[in-house]
């Protein structure tokens, strides 16, 4: 049997295409090298510089950076006001993450499993649209709602209730953060829930499982990777933010981000700022390792 038709055999083949077709490794390398180069140079290199910088110090007389390696910055972080600031930041990030998870799960469930296709698309747009609005515009909106003469106090006074006075407090930060990062929690949970075949939920009911049993034994375990992915966003984004505390926070609302900012720009202590920046990284690594240990990624 003739395999190649004569008129096709003579057709000229692009030599580049031919070379790529036969070499899988070449294709993989070509596709991966631009993002990999970006990642190595911009991200990992600056991370390495930051880690080295955190081991330098500032000469208190000359105000110049001393390049001898020392753990002095980390000693400083472990004392004074810093443990309180770190504790506050982690607590707030955890609180925001939990609140977002509680708000996002039912919403994502309704979106993924109950809503008709049209409503589903509409809801997805509604979730993603706020991400296009400026971060600052959203923060100022929350100031207008929460401040003394704001919408919230006005509503409460009209209802004859005691005024909440949430403006410029840690509670205000909690509310603003929860609002701003909510889409980052909804989308991954939605993705996870949408992928669960409906027959699994039917099977659970068929075997006698109540709605609550199905939620606990089937839905939650299978949605866990999405939940963890979302929590990585909400947790790390809160951990590194310094704008929201400045704008909606009060006197006791300093977070790690603000401490870094202050040391960098007003304190002129670059090594200490770098050492402070290491803290959220360590916390995130611990968080991911913990999540992995608990089997959060087993269903992936």
């Amino acid at each position, binding site marked *: 049997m003739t395999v190649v038709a004569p008129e096709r055999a003579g057709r000229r083949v692009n030599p580049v295409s031919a070379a790529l077709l036969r070499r899988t490794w070449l294709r993989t390398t070509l596709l991966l090298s631009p993002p990999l180069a970006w990642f190595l140079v911009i991200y990992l290199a600056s991370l390495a510089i930051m880690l080295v910088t955190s081991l330098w110090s500032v000469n208190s007389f000359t105000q110049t950076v001393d390049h001898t390696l020392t753990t002095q910055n980390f000693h400083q972080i472990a004392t004074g006001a810093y443990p309180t600031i770190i504790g506050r930041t982690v607590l707030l990030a955890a609180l925001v993450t939990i609140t977002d998870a509680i708000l996002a799960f039912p919403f994502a469930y309704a979106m993924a499993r109950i809503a008709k296709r049209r409503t589903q698309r509409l809801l997805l747009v509604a979730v993603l649209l706020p991400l296009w609005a400026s971060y600052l515009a959203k923060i100022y909106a929350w100031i207008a709602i929460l401040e003394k003469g704001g919408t919230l106090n006005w509503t409460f006074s009209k209802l004859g209730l005691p005024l909440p006075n949430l403006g410029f407090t840690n509670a205000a930060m909690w509310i603003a953060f929860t609002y701003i990062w909510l889409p980052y929690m909804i989308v991954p949970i939605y993705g996870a829930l949408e992928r669960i075949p409906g027959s*699994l939920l039917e099977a*659970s009911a068929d075997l006698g499982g109540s709605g609550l049993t199905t939620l606990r034994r089937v839905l939650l375990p299978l949605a866990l990777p999405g939940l963890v992915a979302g929590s990585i966003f909400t947790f790390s984004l809160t951990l590194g933010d310094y704008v929201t505390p400045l704008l909606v926070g009060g006197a006791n609302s300093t977070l790690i981000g603000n401490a870094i900012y202050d040391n960098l720009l007003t304190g002129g202590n670059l090594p200490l700022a770098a050492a402070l920046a290491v803290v959220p990284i360590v916390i995130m690594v611990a968080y991911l390792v913990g999540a992995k240990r608990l089997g959060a990624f087993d269903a992936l």
Partner: protein
Amino acid sequence: MTGEHPAVRLRGVVKRFGDSTAVAGVDLDVGHGEFFTLLGPSGSGKTTLLRMIAGFELPDEGLIELAGVDATAVPANARDVNTVFQDYALFPHMDVISNVGYGLMVAKVPRNERKKRSEAALDMVRLTGFESRKPAQLSGGQRQRVALARAIVNEPEVLLLDEPLGALDLKLRQEMQVELKDIQRRVGITFIYVTHDQEEALTMSDRVAVMDGGRIQQVDTPFRIYERPASEFVAGFIGVSNLLERDGRQVTVRPEKVHLVTDGETPPAGAHVEAGTVTEVVYLGMVTRYIVALDAGGNVTALRQNVETQDEDTVGLRGRRVQVAWLPEQAYEISSAG
């Protein structure tokens, strides 16, 4: 009293999805311990009917009784029926033994008994030793067995099976057909089995309901469904059937009952004989299929076992004048209205 009631009783069951009617009024009684098959083409309403018995869909009209108790509005988790799903629906995050024991765990059966019963169910489907595997680590046939064990372990009144062998290859499917039938005989649970495969339905069932257009066309034993089809649809859907119009009557004859009579052969005594021309010869290994255009109108398919076939002389019959013959008692008149 319960013994006198059928395991499943359906009366006037109707289900609509928007403008289309999936199930258009079904009355059905399925007895205890029966292997009952709902057979029909896709879109005939058989799966919808099964899902209503399971409780995943609620009927728009009609009554569903399980062992004499009205279950029309009872939610799925409170019905004494279990389902083997087409895609098996095994929980991917649980190992095999946890999957099998899920129903017992929900029912708060003590751990020891749960373990014993789950292991017994796994033994029944010949999967001992696979307890700690995850579904992803199993082959299609093994997943199918786990799904079966997970349903049977609860000892339900009725087991519903939604094309459970559809995803398996032919050989495995035929093995599982025999095994399923054997398991059903041993546990004595009522099986309601949905399939579009007529051979599967004939092989396994005590009774078959042939469905089309949301209605049941015929309920009968496999033998009678095949030999005495009640309508043109049933005759055409179950196996290959010859439909001929003679003297204004619709007559059907199964191909294996049509004798092909070539030169020098004599038709069987008392047979109805017609002359025609062979238009197509299809060699199928075990048998050869001949399509004969009859002089009196219509085509007839005849099967001949390749018992004495020499070389390729069978194919040589194409275009030849032959006679076809069948015994009058092998031909049945059917109502064309069906």
